[in-house]
């Protein structure tokens, strides 16, 4: 049994995905920030070792625009290329093939969306893309619905992590589906990360207390009034939620139970 010290909060409770070991259980996005400098400061404050990034056309008419890579060094922080905005398996696969060529990444975040209004995943296309990508040597971490059966099928198809939504992307509504998330965690043999829906620090703690291996978020930090401070809050929330999970919470009672002895009352 590990002794809980400051050291093992940060360093001695690592997790693994696709054979890579990370200390931080918080993955952060790089969208919606005021500028790259604020984004980089938030990543630093979050302690994240992995950031999600999108793949888009370069601006040929203004090639001297600053690049994300100039602010967040892909040699120090693991870039996790995503397929945000893709609505078919083919689009997602095409995007990730390009991402792999841009930097040699095989660890990727797959998301195939069903429609623009809810950004809810299309699980049929997602499963199809997972199979094809795994066959091409990719290691897809897969954004998915909170469906324990679909989660197992993704795992069988080669997903290296299962990433169910807690609420719609960018909604900040918190985990609406704690029962299903817990069932997915119990059934999975690969890491489970809540991806989407976290709004504030307590939401991240809830995800970790359910036994998730990590949390992925973007808007909750980027749209906070002080993104860098919120990034730090999320780091602490993920760590405290993880510790609470490992510590094992007390049982719930229906009535009061005094903490002070009843004997010896004057």
């Amino acid at each position, binding site marked *: 049994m590990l002794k809980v010290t400051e050291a093992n909060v940060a360093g001695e409770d690592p997790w693994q995905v696709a054979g890579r070991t990370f200390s931080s259980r918080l993955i952060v*996005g*790089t*969208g*919606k*920030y005021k500028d*790259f400098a604020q*984004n980089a400061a938030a990543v630093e404050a979050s302690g994240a070792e992995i950031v*999600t*990034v*999108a*793949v*888009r*056309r*370069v601006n*040929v008419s203004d*090639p*001297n625009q600053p*690049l*994300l*890579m100039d602010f967040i060094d*892909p040699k120090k922080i693991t*870039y996790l*290329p*995503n397929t*945000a905005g893709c609505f078919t398996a083919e689009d997602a696969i*095409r995007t990730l*093939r*390009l*991402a*792999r*060529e*841009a*930097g040699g990444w095989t660890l990727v975040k797959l998301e195939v969306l069903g429609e623009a209004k809810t950004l809810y995943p299309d699980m049929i296309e997602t499963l199809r893309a997972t199979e094809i990508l795994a066959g091409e040597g990719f290691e897809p971490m897969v954004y998915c619905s909170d469906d324990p059966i679909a989660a197992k099928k993704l795992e069988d198809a080669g997903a290296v992590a299962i990433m169910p939504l807690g609420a719609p*992307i*960018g909604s900040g509504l918190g985990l609406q589906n704690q029962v299903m998330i817990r069932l997915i965690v119990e059934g999975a043999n690969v890491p489970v990360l809540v991806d989407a829906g976290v709004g504030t620090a307590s939401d991240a703690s809830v995800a970790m207390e359910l036994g998730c291996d990590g949390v992925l*978020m*973007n*808007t909750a930090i980027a749209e906070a009034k002080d993104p860098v401070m919120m990034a730090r809050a999320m780091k602490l929330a993920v760590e405290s939620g993880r510790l609470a999970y490992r510590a094992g919470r007390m049982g719930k009672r229906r009535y009061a139970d005094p903490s002070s002895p009843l004997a010896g009352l004057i």
Partner: protein
Amino acid sequence: MHDDQTVTIRVNGEHRRVRAGMTVAQLALELGLDPDKVAVERNLAVVPRSTLGDVEVEDGDEFEIVTFVGGG
């Protein structure tokens, strides 16, 4: 090829005329891009980074040149 030794291609959806015989790496440099920071797709097939300096641009080619941007 046109009479003036140029070819017509499309880059990220925009038509361009470039010198015939130019390589993809030269095309990227001419567009002001660092070939190490982009990935190139030519007619829907990824051009491996190791061959950017060998593959020549041909008339009618359609290129997508992408990089990483902020995203969630």
